[in-house]
């Protein structure tokens, strides 16, 4: 699961100056025809760099995304929830594996990406820097954070890079389980005992702002890069994704008798766009830059996992093995 938005840095388009215009024209024609770009095709350096960064950040978001819900993996109530949550968190790890593999076809080894993650050089989705206080938080994440991720991922699956699209197709198929499971949990909480309802409402209140942050800053203040749109690297704007999410899920939250902590929230019947209180983007920036409630813990856990697993990897690494980039 992933909230993209504009956590990517702005590309420097002047790097294009050094590229062969004939090759660029053929490359752009292929994308315009709707064909995918494959690892062995020629591509501009800017395209390669931008994709590595984007897919890598997506992969980091999956592996870090396993942690907030993982908070409840040993405490899931009953067999059905226990099995489902184990499988769901496992899927997040699986998604990271698929995405790192897709990024690896572009020439960055997986361990180099993981190194950048644990050293704090590379970003991941901000939403995972928040704590899951109760079981209800894990229900919120499974349903609504995943729902937001699906909005993003379905858009990206129509992009131009073959290995990324194929990974996303697989991921989206698995996300349908996450979404249904999450909704199932929330329905049970909201229609359950007064304690359950209260837990669920409190989780929504805690997670609403991070959820609004999830899609990234509003289009009017985030940088647009025409060229990434043309190359089908970035497929939908932050506001489009946010609006689509609100359209699909606000009614589903309200029908459960739950409330959303934003008095301004409503759909404008004339424009079809949602009106809402702008979340605090200073908080967003602060958390992205490392000062959220769980940033330190999330990275420390990944670092520890790396450290504790190192002897296994090192014992079995063969010095004579031939490393090449994966094929597709």
């Amino acid at each position: 699961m992933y909230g993209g938005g504009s956590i990517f840095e702005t590309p420097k388009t002047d790097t294009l100056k050094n590229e062969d215009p004939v090759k660029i024209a053929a490359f752009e024609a292929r994308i315009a025809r709707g064909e995918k770009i494959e690892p062995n095709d020629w591509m501009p350096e800017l395209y390669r760099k931008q994709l590595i960064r984007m897919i890598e950040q997506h992969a980091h978001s999956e592996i870090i995304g396993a942690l907030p819900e993982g908070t409840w993996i040993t405490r899931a109530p009953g067999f059905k929830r226990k099995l489902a949550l184990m499988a769901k968190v496992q899927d997040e790890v699986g998604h990271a594996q698929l995405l790192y593999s897709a990024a690896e076809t572009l020439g960055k080894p997986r361990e180099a990406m993981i190194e950048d993650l644990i050293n704090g050089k590379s970003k991941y989705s901000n939403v995972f820097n928040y704590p899951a206080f109760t079981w209800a938080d894990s229900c919120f994440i499974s349903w609504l954070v995943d729902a937001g991720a699906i909005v993003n991922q379905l858009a990206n699956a129509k992009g131009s890079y073959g290995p990324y699209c194929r990974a996303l197709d697989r991921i989206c198929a698995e996300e349908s389980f996450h979404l249904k499971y999450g909704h199932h949990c929330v329905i049970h909480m909201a229609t359950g005992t007064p304690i359950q309802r209260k837990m669920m409402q409190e989780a929504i209140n805690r997670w609403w702002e991070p959820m609004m942050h999830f899609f990234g800053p509003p289009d009017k203040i985030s940088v647009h890069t025409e060229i990434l749109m043309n190359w089908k690297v970035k497929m939908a704007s932050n506001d489009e994704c946010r609006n689509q999410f609100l359209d699909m899920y606000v009614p589903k939250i309200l029908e459960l008798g739950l409330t959303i902590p934003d008095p301004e929230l409503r759909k404008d019947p004339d424009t079809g766009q949602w009106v809402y209180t702008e979340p605090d983007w200073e908080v967003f920036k602060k958390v992205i830059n490392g000062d959220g409630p769980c940033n330190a813990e999330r990275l420390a856990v990944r670092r520890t996992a790396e450290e504790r697993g190192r002897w296994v990897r090192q014992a079995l690494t063969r010095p004579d093995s031939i490393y090449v980039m994966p094929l597709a």
Partner: protein
Amino acid sequence: MKQEALKELLYKMADDQLILGHRNSEWTGMGPLLEEDIAFSSMAQDKVGHSLVMYQMLHQLGENDPDTVAFMRHADQFHNCQFVELPIGEYDFSLMRHFLFDHGELIRFELLAGSSYEPLSLAAKKLKGELRYHKMHADVFIKKLGNATEESITRMQRSLDYAFPFAMGIYEPSPFEESLIEDGVFKGENHLKDLWLESMTKVLNETELKIPDPEAVKPVVGGRTGKHTEHLQPLLDEMAEVFRVDPTAEW
């Protein structure tokens, strides 16, 4: 067939599977590499799934429903061996436990496939494919790490030495052994233990690891009769933390 004997057999198997599955799920999201994180999680899910099948069978025999049985009992009501409740430790220990346990578990299921108690024989036939994978997985890791570097061999040996007396405790005989054997339900823990020793010795002999002498080792027993280490009750409290907020609620 004596129901008491059958229930004892089902309970100890189910409790072993649940507790080990729960323990191994602690690695999910924190494994030594992404692919292994996924494989280990699947096997933990398989284990919890197996326990559910066993608790359902017990439910058919008049016991409480699986959720109540799994989430509401106190440690001294659990029949799992002490081996499975030990903390996950470092990966070497978790792997070694998986290796030792699943070699026996596969043989147990192969034996039970011929059980006179039909629900059990059907379940065993169906599920043994999963255990075959568990054994394949364990064997690959043990053979490699047991032959690789000084560090990996030392770690695996240390874990083997520590785990072995506990693993012997898996086969603590039940008071109903004779009745189970007589009725054709199960061939008995002693028989299983011999097959297990043979099976895992074969793999360990392909490594640098030295198997402790089974005759000289004192098996750690007691789990089958509700005597547990200090680790089980906290595990159960954690597992049931949400469930017990309101056991009558639907979560």
